[in-house]
């Protein structure tokens, strides 16, 4: 029961990070654009809107990309993969995901350091720390590592010999 609850919490957290936050970011970006145009002609030009839109766009891109990784919606070059059998396809997946996993592991700490370092700077108008603005990059790296780890684990587990059913 405890496991089920933790599993549900994990899935909900993933949905929030990968689906709801990018959807909300994009919605806010769209609304802010409309406010920007309306205010320019009806009231007074706003200065914070561009900064906000860029930030929302960055968040939509990075977290939306994690969502797309979940159901393999990214652009791939699949000519070689599609022309081989299931065993070779698994080997290709293992090699590809393994390389990606290694690269993202290498980059995790330096990326974290860079994002933390950017905290010295604040957005010109909104005065938000750039560490916060750039923080989805860390979420993107960690979520990608998690997703790749899960894919590697699934493929590796399928390599293990199946137990014969008892006569």
């Amino acid at each position, binding site marked *: 029961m405890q496991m089920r609850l933790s599993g549900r919490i994990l899935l909900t957290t993933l949905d929030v990070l990968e689906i709801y936050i*990018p*959807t909300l970011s*994009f919605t806010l970006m769209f609304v802010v654009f409309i406010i920007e*145009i309306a205010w320019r002609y009806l009231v007074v030009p706003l200065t914070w809107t561009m900064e906000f*839109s860029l930030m929302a766009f960055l968040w*939509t891109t990075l977290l939306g*990309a994690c969502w797309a990784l979940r159901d393999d919606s990214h652009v791939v070059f699949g000519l070689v993969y599609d022309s081989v059998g299931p065993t070779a396809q698994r080997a290709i997946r293992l090699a*590809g995901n393994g390389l990606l996993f290694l690269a993202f592991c*290498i980059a995790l700490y330096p990326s974290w350091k860079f994002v933390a370092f950017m905290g010295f700077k604040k957005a010109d108008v909104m005065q938000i720390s750039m560490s916060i603005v750039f923080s989805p990059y860390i979420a993107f790296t960690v979520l990608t590592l998690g997703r790749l780890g899960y894919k590697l684990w699934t493929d590796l587990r399928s390599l293990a010999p199946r137990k014969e059913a008892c006569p």
Partner: protein
Amino acid sequence: MSLPLIIFLLMFTLTMLLRIPIAFGMIMSSIFYFTFATGPHVPISMAANQFLSNMNVSFILLAVPLYIFAATIMNTSMVTELIFRFANTLVGRWKGGIGHVNVINSLIFSGMTGSAVADAAGPGIMEIEAMRKSGYEDAFSCALTAASATIGPIFPPSIPMVFYSLLSGASVGALFMGGMVPGVLMAVFLMAYVSYISNKRNYPTGVSVGFREFVRDTLYALPALLTPVILLGSIYSGLVTPTEAGALASLWALVISVAFYRSLGWRQLVEVLKSTAKTTGTVSIIVGAAFSFSYIIAIEHIPVAIGQLFLSITTNKYAFLFIVNVLFLVLGMFLDTMPIMFVFVPIVLPIVNQLGIDLVHFGVVIVLNMMIGLLTPPYGVLLFIMSGIAKTPLKPIIIETLPMTGTLIVLLFLMTYVPEVVLFVPRLLGQIK
């Protein structure tokens, strides 16, 4: 060639061979390069640095999710259906009527969105179904729908032209204007082919619509047809930037779908927003990944080396354009438009500048070239989409697409060697000298 560069190129090759998502493969190649490279300008964190610092200042890129949003609203609500009905009343009575309707429908739809895939996956379903009902072979219907979908990013607005503007510094407004005549010519060329093949195969003449019905369909479709007028009018009157125009077009599409046609409920709207966020993730992540990729290409002086190679072959700009067109057509057979745009276009841009070729002219030519790549096997995304939608084998679709691809290649070379085809409208409206 240095060891980090060899590793970088090897990793990008493995990205292709191991079916790694292109964006993630670009990031991976950059990380491995920075891991092995030495010097103050190449720490591993440079991959994150290039991604974040550049994405955070590229205001022009904000147009991308907004155009995606507009296209998704159109495809979800009944706007596409109305435009199709309007196109049917316009040209449906001709010989091969539904074929012509398919092309006109794509041309109108392309004035609202900027993506060939959105055109193929949205109105494409309706176009194929209508052609099937009228007795056209599935393979021909799929081929024509795929070919007409390529008008999407040529006739303004255009997502690939936004990317090209980011890379080259050419004005988005001028690029959009430059695509107007070529977009209409693509429709004319494809309709000429439809006429020829309809006579040869005796395809049916569509139903002739009476004047009263024509007026009714036109008036009912008018709010939808106003979308490109609002979009382009607001840009060229100087009221809004091309990026803001994407928001205006989306708002207009939203208002008419919800309030006028009453074809978009809250639940559908939430799904549209979710779909836009995901598509933005798949498209824009490639742009972000390409920043560190391009940084490495620049610090390794690859454009200089390739430029020297090109210039050793020829210094004649017409010969250069011929070579580039052939090279990009070959690349388009194997690669998606995004890697071509972000890996290969920045490599040839310095030579384009050096030879004095107009950046707007080159941009429109290269975007059409890449759109043709979406139709050419073995890797033609539009062919795959059509095959999936119509549940039709790829081979007959490919065979039917070949003459249409040939027609578009003729237009490509016409545009290449008669720059006025592209530059006439931007010059007329004072966007370029």
